[in-house]
């Protein structure tokens, strides 16, 4: 198949905290710090698994999940989520976001398998970022699951004494 259409010369990786990293397309296998380009290598072997080699140091990497243009990467034990945008989709996203307004919904998922001990909110409750919403017991520890946003509870999808799997939906919040 011969590729036609607009050339993509740049790609943006947007982090969940809205940081923007810009990469040229085709992707260079180096990253510039100040005046120097440092080579980046993606490698894998039996002892270490997949890793990135950069400035003489190995960093463990894992692709936790990828869905459409969204990627969750575990890099040196820290997970980062990025959406990759082309200049074109970036422009389109801006337009759409402006027309959609702010009525987004956030779904709270179980971070690990366990048992729901308590649900601390009801549908319609107003919650603040950082407020505990659900208590989940896993590995003999009770964990508070906190609200990631300010908003209003639109749906409660679990109840006390329920066993849940990782990523089961627990609560849906209408974001303020």
């Amino acid at each position, binding site marked *: *198949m011969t*590729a*036609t*259409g*607009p*050339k*993509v010369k740049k*790609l943006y*990786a947007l*982090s969940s905290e809205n*940081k923007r*990293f810009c*990469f040229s*397309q*085709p*992707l260079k296998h180096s*990253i510039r*710090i100040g005046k120097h380009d440092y080579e*980046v290598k*993606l490698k894998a072997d039996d*002892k*270490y*698994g997949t890793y*990135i080699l*950069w400035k003489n140091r*190995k*960093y*463990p*990497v*894992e*692709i936790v999940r*990828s869905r*459409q*243009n969204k*990627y969750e*990467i*575990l*890099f*040196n*034990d*820290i*997970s*980062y989520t*990025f959406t*990759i945008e*082309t200049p*074109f*989709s970036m422009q*389109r*996203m801006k337009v*759409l976001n402006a027309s959609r307004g702010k009525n987004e919904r956030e779904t709270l998922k179980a*971070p*690990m*398998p*366990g048992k729901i001990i308590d649900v601390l909110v009801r549908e319609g409750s107003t919650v603040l970022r950082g407020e505990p919403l659900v208590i989940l017991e*896993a*590995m*003999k520890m009770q*964990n508070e699951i*906190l609200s990631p946003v300010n908003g209003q509870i639109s749906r409660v999808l679990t109840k006390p004494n329920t066993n849940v799997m990782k990523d089961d939906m627990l609560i849906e919040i209408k974001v303020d």
Partner: protein
Amino acid sequence: MKIKRILIANRGEIAVRIIRTARKMKIETVAVKTSVEPVAMFLSDADIVYDNTEDNSEIPVFLNIERLIEIALETKCDAVHPGYGFLAENAYFAQKCIDNNINFIGPSPDAIYKMGNKTIARKIALSAGIPMAMGSEGNIANEEEAVAIADKIGYPVIIKAASGGGGRGMRIVRKPEEMEKMFIIASKEAEKAFNDPSVFIEKYIENPKHIEFQVLGDKKGNVIHLGERECSIQRKHQKLLEEAPSVALDDELRNTMGKIAVQIAKAVNYYSAGTVEFLLDSEKNFYFMEMNTRIQVEHPVTEAITGIDLIEQQIRTAAGEALKYRQEDIKLTGWAIECRINAEDVQSGFAPDPGKIEKLSLPLGSNIRVDTGVQAGSAIVPSYDSMIAKLIVKGKDRKDAIKNCKLALDKVWIKGTKTTLPFFRMLVRNQKFLNGTFTTAFIEKDLDKYYLNSEYEEMLAAWLATKLFIEENLMDNSISVDFENSREMSPWLLNKRINQF
């Protein structure tokens, strides 16, 4: 009475640790294989493996007193080491061992019972004149009584479970109107966790340091201390990093506190290894908190600066040998730090992250010790704790130990689960940790981020995500096209991208 064969009534790294010393002492070990964890390092290390995989009992074998006694008798063990957790501080288990002519490697059932019940321990400490936080004389009957006592000693107060430990059944109360709710919560939690709803009240010491003393006693009545451990880096009463000694103590305070620790141990005729926990406030006042009648997770930092094998001392004193050390023989040399590398997700509030350890590479070195019960391929199962390994690093002083720790942390390689490594990588660069002024409130109050966030690392992660995106979306795999020569996006792909919005 020499010990010839020990049943390890435990699993994981502590089982491996006990087996190591037993082997050195030419004592045989028996480990118990369970269906939850049929393959584990401690099983391959033990001399004899007892297969308990057919056991269908509801109670896990490491909590099943009758079953453990049966196994010990069947495998002809003359001693049992309980490790930590499980039945380590169960007086009934210790008594049952003795009743069956099995040596319990730990203190007497009486000492376990008295120190295990916090209200009794308080009374003993009070009558021995040990400094303690003000509080209730015994257990509290109801919330009215709780309010009355709190009014007398002043808020904030802490409600604690009489049979408690490890932070469960504990609640801080700052105002009288919170008392009723907190009393009920603490009492319920205590009942659930320890089968005993009784609670008591103490004055809550704000922002203290958690300082504990290692004590060692024999059956002839000799008790010494091996200095302190600083365990203030904790989250919800779960310790994450411990060090020995502590920056907060000078020789004078160390002697004073050490003497009191020995005095408490002697008050219950203590033998074996034990730990006396204190809270130390900013004015250097210290208060007796509790005594743990077992080997502690963090015992290696004391071993590192004293050169004494605590498990060996436990075995020797259990066999009736007298301590060969006197207090003046104990010299603290250098500085040691222990990081508890757990399968936890620091980005989700330290939530456990069980899973299979796919790759594991641990650092080696003359100043590094790693205690672990896992290897590549092992699973961290949800039924047990989330510990992967303890990284113990030594240095000639605190600064040197932290420097060595920083280097060692970068050499730990674990794939398969998220770990507490990013937390420690942040901690060893934190100013308050470096200057030693941190308290038990450090994690909750002084940190806004629980992990090290390097800008370059994030950029590299972004690079990888972008690379994956290109490979999945911008490269046409139907014919083999060199990526470098295929720079254009197909209309089909472009369309797909647009439809996502």
